């Protein structure tokens, strides 16, 4: 579930508000998105993928954590923006799709992609 919208990093571009498939976000008075319908978050990580400044963090557990994780620790260990990096979105990166050749799941079918 969405845990962090970094006030430090957010550039108020509204992208997460626009792309969230379950309409979790609204624009706050200062332009920083607020989690108006957080219970509707389906933990799909799409907001993270689209955030151009790696300001969002979605915890993989599909329920809210008792307290949000420590943003500075997540920034330090590279967790902020990790998914966007892995799918190769962002300037100068190779699209992850280009490298997506998985292991053969079954000897008769050859390698699996995606």
């Amino acid at each position: 579930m969405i845990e962090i919208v970094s006030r430090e990093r957010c550039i108020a571009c509204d992208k997460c508000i626009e792309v969230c498939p379950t309409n979790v976000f609204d624009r706050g008075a200062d332009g920083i998105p607020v989690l108006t319908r957080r219970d509707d978050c389906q933990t799909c990580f799409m907001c993270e993928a689209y955030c151009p400044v790696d300001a969002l963090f979605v915890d993989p557990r599909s329920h809210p954590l008792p307290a949000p994780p420590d943003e500075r620790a997540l920034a330090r260990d590279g967790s902020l923006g990790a998914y966007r990096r892995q799918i190769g979105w962002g300037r100068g990166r190779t699209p992850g799709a280009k490298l997506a050749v998985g292991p053969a799941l079954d000897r008769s079918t050859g390698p699996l992609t995606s």
Partner: protein
Amino acid sequence: MTDLTADVFVAGGGPAGAWAAIKAAEAGASVVLADKGYLGTSGATASGGTGVWYVEPDPAAREAAMASRESLGGHLADRDWMARVLDQTYANMREIAEISRYPFPEDADGRQIRRGLQGPEYMRRMRVRVRRSGVRILDHSPVTELLADASGAVAGAAGHRLRADEPFRVRAGAVVLATGGCAFLSKALGCDVNTGDGALFAAEAGAELSGMEFSNAYAIAPAFTSVTKTAFYSFATFYHQDGSVLEGAGSRRGRSVIARTLLREPVLCRIDRATEDERRAMRLAQPNFFLPFDRQGIDPFRDLFPVTLLAEGTVRGTGGIRIAGNDCSTSVPGLFAAGDAATRELICGGFTGGGSHNSAWAMSSGTWAGQGAARYAAGLGGRAGTRTVRALGEAGIRPSRADGSGPGHREVVAAVQAQVLPYDKNYLRHGDRLAPALDVLDAAWRDLRATLRADGADGVRARSAAAMAAHARWMYRAALARTETRGMHKREDRPGQDPAQHHRLVTGGLDEVWNRPETPVPAVAS
């Protein structure tokens, strides 16, 4: 109020809806597409990724591809449809490569490997193409009901624009329903927008459903998470809590062992049968598979971690709106269906086992439905926008006794989930458990039909709740009618396949649910 007219209206912005919109526009139609969320991120494909049933046009390879699934699917698929889908998928994947410039991986000889698609990349590019086709996209605009003309032909749709908090209406010559399957808000990856709304709309217009007994798909996910990527669990071993191996458990044949064990105790897992090379390949193929592990400090190749099974209902099941013609028309004039909203029995019978057939079906059926809808609309000769229309919505929008005394949409959803999510009701099926579950669902339907109603964004939720209740009743009515085990529909009390039931089951109705065998029996080479 947003009030529009178009030749073709498409409900749903996953792959099937996107292809339908593009192909309708290419056929010369003016097109409006509305999605509950956002075309590009919405639905089961966008946040995941999928293999694609993509087979080179070599007769032997095609024959093997068709034959491989016939038995798993209970011999309910149709060779002509399989062949058409293989042809169309091959063509569409080429368009994805050449028009959308999708960055496919390459083999050692520099040839593109086109057997899979990463969801975010695929659907981002589909959005671009939909826009370039001149389609008007309404994001965050769930459809709540269909409109019909005086003859009963579908003539548009209405819904609510969530961001502007205002209603919308599109009068159209034809409508394509590409609203996805129904996963009952189980939090399976990307599936919470898939609440079976299109099937409810179709039934209200008088369309039929097929294969609703094939609706008990469950996917493996790390416990408490949403990440339902089951494929890599073929490299896993499953364990009891004391560390002993859970005999018979597996991602393919042994998933029911996992379900049965989860009813009593936790099930642990470790991806311990993959080589170093395979582990590296997994990370490249499906980065999202690793999010739950990386972010909880779990090494899935070394540590034991608890797993769960999340319901995927008719998203990965094969039931849906019955297709009546090669252009993905339904039995109702002006109404077309595509993707997971439609039955996928035509190409895989009663079992899919994974995204590859569903993704091939989404792009193929979307293509045909879009072209068919454009042709139908053109045949109206410009009358599309001038017809007098009436709204068809009933349950959750126009209750029969609107005194507001009944349960709200949250109560309805909870009541439906209590009957369709538990493994011992839906997955491990038995007539003695299905029948009482259906009784509860029928009673819930009567209540909501009488009183459930809400306004604005809550009205959307009320309709989704009604759609889930309807879906659950069609599922269990069909599951009780199929008194045998076939495809994914496994009855503990009817373990064998009954040759006398080698037919598809057609289901329909709202207040009174009915079913009947489809005739004629599908032609099957065995």
